[in-house]
């Protein structure tokens, strides 16, 4: 028994160390390779010579626009679906069972399949072409299952009693959710958003077919735009001599993800402090 515990401890430590090392080596590789060449102008200049020269400003703008479209769809749709699934949690009707299963299946579909679907549905059938809009919508489809899964967990942990009390006072469901349930589920809303944004920013395959890889500044949401992840892929695989700027772009993407995470982390902390204050002011 004693030996067993020691073994498991050693295994756990070794594997945790491996995971840590691999993360450090990825981050380190990007940092070291990018650091000597990176300058502020890289962030602010246009792409030149297919990315070998110049900066990534239009790419950053496209990335943020795609992300914006994605989250504008994910947030309302995700929140409402989660509420629907959670409120009728106990009913176990076949419709809810079906929705739940579909979400599970969707979260396992490879992104290239989403890309093909987005291309044929948004780009061709709905005639959006290669555009930021169709890219963002495709990403929204990809991020929704993750968002719903995470947020519904959080909603379900809010005491059912609060809903009942609200109803017993004659409150409308809208008011109960707005004033009582959603404020309590805010931490899980933040977590769900962070995960969805992370998934959207990391995506390459689905975007190549939908938002395309035009690297100039997009003029509207119907314009094609190149996301950072696509830019990195293109530089590394298709552009001879693009390695250096691929690293630089990877650094920018990493920095973007980390700062978005940090922002939400602070938001979460701020929210916790605020809700604690409500509980503890005396």
């Amino acid at each position, binding site marked *: 028994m004693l030996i067993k515990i020691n073994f498991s401890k050693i295994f756990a430590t070794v594997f945790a160390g491996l995971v840590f090392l691999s993360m450090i080596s990825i981050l380190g590789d990007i940092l070291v390779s990018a650091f000597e060449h990176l300058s502020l102008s890289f962030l602010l200049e246009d792409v030149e010579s297919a990315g070998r020269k110049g900066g990534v400003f239009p790419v950053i703008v496209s990335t943020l626009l795609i992300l914006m479209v994605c989250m504008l769809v994910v947030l309302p749709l995700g929140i409402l679906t989660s509420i629907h699934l959670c409120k009728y949690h*106990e009913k176990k009707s076949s419709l809810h069972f079906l929705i739940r299963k579909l979400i599970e299946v969707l979260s396992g579909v490879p992104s290239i399949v989403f890309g093909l679907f987005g291309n044929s549905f948004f780009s061709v059938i709905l005639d959006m072409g290669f555009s930021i809009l169709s890219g963002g919508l495709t990403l929204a489809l990809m991020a929704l299952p993750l968002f719903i899964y995470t947020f519904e967990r959080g909603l379900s942990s809010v005491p059912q009693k609060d809903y009942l009390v*609200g109803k017993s*006072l*004659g*409150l409308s469901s809208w008011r109960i959710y707005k004033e*009582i349930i959603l404020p309590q589920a805010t931490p899980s809303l933040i977590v769900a958003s962070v995960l969805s944004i992370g998934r959207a920013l990391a995506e390459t395959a689905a975007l190549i077919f939908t938002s395309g890889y035009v690297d100039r500044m997009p003029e509207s949401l119907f314009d094609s735009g190149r996301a950072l992840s696509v830019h990195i892929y293109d530089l590394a695989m298709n552009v001879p001599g693009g390695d250096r700027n691929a690293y630089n772009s990877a650094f920018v993407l990493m920095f973007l993800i980390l700062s978005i995470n940090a922002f939400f982390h602070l938001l979460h902390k701020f929210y916790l402090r605020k809700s604690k204050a409500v*509980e503890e*002011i*005396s």
Partner: protein
Amino acid sequence: MSLVFEVKKLDLFYQKKCVFCKLDFKLYSNKITGIIGPSGCGKSSFLSVLNRLSDLNPDITRNGHVLFQGKDIFSSDCELKELRKKVALIFQEPSPLPLSIYDNIALALKEHGFSDIDSRVKKALSDVGLWDELEGDIGRSALKLSGGQKQRLCIARSIALEPEVLLLDEPCSSLDPISTEIIESLLLKLKERFSILIVTHNLAQAKRLCDRVAMFWYNSDWQAGEKLIEGNADEVFAETKNQIVNDFLAGVRG
């Protein structure tokens, strides 16, 4: 003494099992009516039918009629929001919402379109004796109150809406004797303004508070709850004919 609730031949089913059968019941205005009886004979379920909170549980079905001020609450033209405003339910566990004391009361007032919310909040809190106790500090979280204070806040939250009926489901069962005494004297004061229906396990409490008493019992032939006896409190407590009632009141059964 006017009739507020008239229940006619009410059956209640949980899934397919009968909770209670063929229940007749009358609630009169400005009286405290107590429901006593052992667990599992449907007392709490009965309360939740009276403001149709039981509708929220899809496993519950019902037959029969409940007339509130002469109108059937199950008919399609019954306004649920209005019914729940007029028939307030106070739960067994003190259940303030995770908001400030002020917002606990103000939220429902806003929903029902009351004006001068601040003064109504103050009045409701004064009615239950919380205003002086808290010295007007009503911005703090309701979750930080003591058990008895929470329960009084829940009562204040309900009476702020100017209901007709207060339904209380064992409101003191999780409270200490001092808090219980405060709530009891509060209820005696409130019966001048409201009709009160209280479920209690505590026979001594029923004797102290109630003008009328109904006793529920588990009928083992029906495998369901039933109402054994209903009447003025002194008559019920002096009952000698029914052996089950006698034994229960004497503490021999229960």
